[in-house]
């Protein structure tokens, strides 16, 4: 067996440690959660603004609104892809991310409803309130499931700690 073989079996290479530290980074995960929520919520608010506009908008303004909505949704989709494939959330991260998502929807939904109430028709108001309620409910459900999963793992961890010598 060569020296390289012995070294390989003995220790974890520094390069691997660095790569894995980046892979498990909580900061990177939270950054993507924030980017995704900002993109999604921003797109939702712009959509409410556009829908509740009292007068027909010029073509350029409509194109600008559509572009901003597309950019927001693209960021949300990108963050979703990263968080599902590249930087999946661990149980504790998921609880933290779900709390942030709930806070974001709890701010965005009333803001959208207030905009619709001030600028739009009753139909706009009802549609915005329904959309806000669905998003907030989805965030709440995500939080409940994340907490349940964390609780299961905590219980398992404690049981295993008792079994371990």
């Amino acid at each position, binding site marked *: *067996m*060569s020296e*390289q*073989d012995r*070294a*390989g*079996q*003995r220790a*974890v*290479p520094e*390069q*691997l*440690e660095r*790569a*894995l530290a980046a*892979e*498990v980074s*909580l900061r990177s995960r939270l950054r993507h959660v924030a980017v995704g929520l900002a993109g999604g919520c921003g797109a939702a608010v712009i959509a409410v603004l556009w829908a509740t506009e009292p007068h027909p908008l010029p073509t350029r303004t409509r194109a600008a609104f559509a572009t901003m909505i597309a950019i927001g949704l693209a960021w949300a989709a990108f963050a979703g892809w990263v968080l599902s*494939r*590249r*930087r*999946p*959330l*661990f*149980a*504790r*991260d*998921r609880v933290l991310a779900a709390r942030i998502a709930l806070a974001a929807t709890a701010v965005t939904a009333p803001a959208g409803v207030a905009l619709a109430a001030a600028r739009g028709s009753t139909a706009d108001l009802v549609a915005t309130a329904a959309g806000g309620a669905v998003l907030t409910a989805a965030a709440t459900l995500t939080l409940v499931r994340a907490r349940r999963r*964390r609780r299961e*793992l*905590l219980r*398992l*961890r404690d049981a*295993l*700690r008792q*079994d*371990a*010598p």
Partner: protein
Amino acid sequence: MAGEELLVVRCQLGEREAFRELVATWHPPLWRYVRGMVGSPHLADDLAQEAWVAVVRGLPRLRQPERFAPWLFTIARRTVADLLRQTYRAPETAMEEARTVLAEDELGGVLTTMQIEAGLAALPPLEREVLILFHLEDLPLASCAEVLGVPAGTVKSRLHRARRMLRNHLAEKGYEA
């Protein structure tokens, strides 16, 4: 066993300090498996790192933490298989690399003190990996079957064939089998 499962559960929870322990515990056996399959320590380093990245990315979805070892080796096996597929797809560059690996191997064979490991390099990949998993990694038969994706009976017959080939090879080299 409970200690290993505990480590996996702590990682799934997101305890960052547990990852370091997990890697320190499992990197040597993972590296040894990959090294046995590819024949070059440098390539083994790269593939082991690739496998670890896949492990970290897949860990939140692992539903049975007690099945970590076979899951880990399944990922390592897939990583090695991907490399072999690329090797066959791009014959020119890959053959160059394979020749280099072979040259290193021959040199390594002169220096090696472990007869079994030296013999392993001469076996075909299927026989080599079953010997590594069963004898060097000490995985039970059922776990080997899970990693290799074949029934336990096939693992037994493959093991039988691999032992016979290794014995013949060592006998040819003049070792007492």
